[in-house]
């Protein structure tokens, strides 16, 4: 069965410091991996995705994520955090090798990122 784990409920960083939000996944085939961000009282916004190719994926707002197949991880990173990055972040996975793909995603439980001035 497919699953996603975000081991940290909350991550606290100081503004200007690098940040990492962790995600590990489990799928039987090739993973398609996504990161979304949710600001208070808003819907989810797409940040970036990994489908194939370069293991380092760049996305919106200066975020990037590194795909590591051996560790089944897809951690979200940013070199220098901003207070405005404070939000709830979700990792999601789809099994890309399944036939009859319906686009369904499995989401992690979310990690709250708090960036302090």
């Amino acid at each position, binding site marked *: 069965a497919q699953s*996603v784990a975000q081991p940290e409920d909350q991550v606290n960083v100081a503004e200007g410091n690098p940040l990492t939000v962790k995600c590990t996944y489990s799928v039987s085939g090739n993973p398609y991996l996504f990161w*979304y961000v949710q600001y208070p009282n808003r819907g989810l916004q*797409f940040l970036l995705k990994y489908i194939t190719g370069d293991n380092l994926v760049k996305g919106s707002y200066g975020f990037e994520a590194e795909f590591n197949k051996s560790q089944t991880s897809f951690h979200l990173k940013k070199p220098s955090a901003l207070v405005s990055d404070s939000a709830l972040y979700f990792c999601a996975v789809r099994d890309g090798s399944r036939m009859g793909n319906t686009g369904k995603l499995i989401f992690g439980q979310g990690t709250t990122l708090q960036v302090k001035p």
Partner: protein
Amino acid sequence: NAGVTQTPKFRILKIGQSMTLQCTQDMNHNYMYWYRQDPGMGLKLIYYSVGAGITDKGEVPNGYNVSRSTTEDFPLRLELAAPSQTSVYFCASSYPREMGEQYFGPGTRLTVL
């Protein structure tokens, strides 16, 4: 493009009442989804549709129904509201490609008392 729109934004229901959550997208996406979000639980898929006239159950379909008569609209129906259905509901849509990301609406916050 308005993207994915949802109405209402907020609603309070009494136990046993029914209601329909509306979802419309103007991106001509074939695939549409309904999720519920509970604190600390992430998003759980309720129902999804791969095109007009085609719907299927997700992970938590009990207590809900859907229909898809047009590409644009995907309403979610609660027939007999229960306190366990208190949640935030999100509608999403995507292109029919394996690697297509989903686009989300702003959500409906539902409280059942």
